[in-house]
């Protein structure tokens, strides 16, 4: 990389890190507050289905040495977190961080995979439409994309399972990770594809990429490129594709994370979304907080990527 580009990148990097820290603080606080407002003592999950009076209920906190006041709870959590200790799940007693890392990787695969699929669908259509306008080829594809992105994702999931697995048995239906069937990976492709298609953003992505590219195509410097017989694509690539795509990635990650909550349950995918869901119902606050942290960091990663690319690509540096 050219030395000229290093400085803005370093700048962007430091800026991002500072922002992320602030953000994690904010997220943790907000989430904790909502948790606190919602009824149900996290520790009552330990007494699920037992006949014990109020006294022993109250006793539990002392038994576990958990602070009573919510802010005390938050602060102690924060303190531990800064020491790198995310605490242990109230329900399973397992160390939160390890658990999240384990399932987080699955969710990462799912999310990025489906994002990739979304882009693989959207980019060609968008570029074609941008350069040639609505043609016999691009128009039906766009429509198709619009249609699928308007379907409820879990219903799409059932549909896929019914048609491809139940009816035609194209994929093995296996559950969990210990399935030793052949072509098992095929099954793991299914949820990724479903989320990639059904996350409801394909149409939006197409529209955005198309507009950006056609805007750039009308720029003077593209005309210059043509006039000197250079490759239009090479000149349009950075502003017309690279930047918009990174923007998409950055802005869609949280959205797709949300979709993962559903898809992971439909396809029995051992992921973070499912864990978050369970934890939210148990008020298992160490887990929820941990997930909030990881998710936030994950989202930041997207925008980090974005501003890095922008800094690297645009000599003017991150701010326009």
């Amino acid at each position, binding site marked *: 990389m050219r030395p000229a580009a290093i400085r803005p990148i370093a700048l962007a990097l430091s800026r991002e890190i500072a922002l992320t820290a602030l953000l994690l603080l904010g997220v943790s606080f907000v989430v904790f507050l909502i948790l606190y407002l919602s009824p149900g003592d996290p520790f009552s999950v330990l007494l699920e289905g037992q006949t014990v009076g109020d006294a022993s209920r109250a006793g539990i906190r002392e038994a576990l040495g958990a602070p009573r006041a919510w802010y005390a709870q938050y602060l102690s959590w924060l303190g531990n977190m800064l020491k790198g200790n995310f605490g242990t799940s109230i329900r399973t007693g397992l160390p939160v961080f390890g658990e999240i890392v384990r399932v987080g990787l699955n969710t990462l695969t799912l999310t990025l995979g489906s994002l990739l699929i979304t882009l693989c669908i959207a980019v060609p259509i968008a570029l074609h439409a941008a350069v040639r306008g609505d043609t016999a080829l691009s128009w039906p594809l766009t429509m198709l994309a619009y249609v699928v992105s308007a379907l409820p994702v879990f219903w799409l999931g059932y549909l896929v399972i019914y048609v491809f697995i139940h009816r035609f048995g194209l994929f093995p*239906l296996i559950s*969990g990770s210990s399935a030793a069937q052949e072509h098992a990976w095929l099954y793991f492709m299914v949820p990724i594809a479903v989320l990639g298609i059904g996350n409801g953003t394909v149409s939006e992505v197409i529209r955005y990429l198309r507009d950006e590219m056609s805007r750039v195509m009308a720029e003077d410097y593209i005309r210059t490129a043509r006039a000197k017989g250079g490759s239009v694509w090479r000149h349009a690539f950075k502003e017309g594709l690279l930047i918009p795509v990174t923007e998409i990635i950055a802005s869609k990650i949280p959205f797709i994370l949300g979709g993962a909550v559903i898809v992971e349950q439909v396809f029995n995918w051992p992921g973070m979304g499912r864990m978050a869901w369970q934890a939210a119902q148990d008020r298992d606050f160490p887990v929820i907080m941990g997930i909030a942290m990881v998710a936030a960091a994950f989202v930041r990663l997207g925008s980090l990527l974005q501003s890095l690319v922008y800094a690297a690509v645009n000599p003017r540096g991150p701010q326009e």
Partner: protein
Amino acid sequence: MTRTSLVVLLSLATALTVPAGSQAESKKDGRSDGGILGYGEYGRPATLDPITSNEMISVRITELVFNGLVAIDEKQEIVPDLAERWEASKDGRTYAFFLRKDVTWHPKEGEEARPFTADDVVFTYNIMMHPKTITPLKVRYEFIEKVEKLGDDAVQFTLKRPILNALAKFSFKVIPKHGPSNPLYLTREDPFVQHPIGTGPYILRNITADREVILVANEKYLRGRPHIDKFIAKPFADQNIMSQALMFNAIDMIVLVNPRDLPEIQGDKRFVLQPYNALSYAFFSYNLRNPLLADKRVRRAFTHAVNREEMLEAFFNKQGTIISGPFAPGSWAYNLDVQPLPFDPQRAIALLNEAGFTPGPDGVMQKDGKKLSLSLKVPIEKESEAVKRVVLAFQNYLKNVGVAVRVEFKEWQAWKADVFLEHNFDIILASWVFDDSADISSLFHSAEIGAWKNNFGGYSNPEVDGLIVESKLTLDHEKRRTINRKLHALLADEAPYTFLWTLTNYSAYHKKVRRVAIHPYKFFSFADEWFVPESEQK
């Protein structure tokens, strides 16, 4: 209805002792060893030890990993387990158990298997009762005064007072002294709760990323090596997918089949649907703090208004029986002479009129200006359309007799707070799951009214209280039976609940698995006898 089940853990036994015959290394029954059984669970296990675990999923797994001093066999009889014999004192206050000497704990990896001794029993009891240990078991063992070791292979329990069928209570699972890292009490942070060590037929090998629990046969099991090599518990988050998984041989067994999936599985020759009579029943409970519902006639009217047969048939394919009273059907305490109140809207209306209600202009019954409109609170759960059906049908039935019911769905924790803490409801739908017991004191005794207690309806009746106490105190089985029959009749008449039905639970499994006997509550109690013929062990 997984979540709506409020589990009451109490205990009973038919008192008969059978002398123990100690067994050899491997079963000599000529049935073939080997094969794998993967079974699907809806939800994921939290902890896997017998003390902190409080969900059915975990209870089922601990049943495979641990033993008690005594066990209860398929005929509901008490048989030796870790103890090969026992002696009870005349006054019934002391029980001495003489332990088997040939039992070893599951070996930790890279370690010698340690022998099971009296110390482990004492240790288990102490850790169970330690104030810092959070366990549903504690309340069940408060009747014990102390436990002493009578040598390496004998322990003696002293009871505070003699109680009936005390023996059965010693079926609690024993954990090893060298198990938990904290010798005093057990919390969920303790590694032991995720990697338990037992004496049971199966050794917990490992837990995968998706919390799949993998169990392997214990070669040195005290009843001889179990037939099936490996059990795999697979958690599911979607019941539709779980039954698909069975259909596509991703799993071999579903512990509890969702009623809606029964027809499909029934039609499939590859699978066996095995009913097991869970000691549980569903009911609508009324909040007697509401003056409208304090009147017995109103409650009876509601019960008359509801067509339970129709619901049972339409929603659950007739897989269950209508009940009339507070005891789990199939338990000895259930009074078969008491008939459920029949479906009879006319009767219901008559009763309401009798109670002073007259149809208002909007068709809703009212009494001196007060409308008979009530809130029915139901906890939200995923895929709970069975619950929705019952609730909405109920609403519909009551509408027909001029009662307005507002159905309010609430998030589970919020619902529990409303019902158990605030007592802020008129009607709820729930179901009790008993382990193997006939003790309903916590449900209807007036002393059980209060925050987080089970008598959330606030039902208080000195006569009932009297009978409950009496039945508790009597030491004679037959006497207690008659008392409970009286209790049953009384509560059926009082109708603090509208007793609905007990559903037949169905387990579905691939027919390659043979000789499957199921414990109604702990499920896997007899799993060491299950087997898969050589030819089908793929």
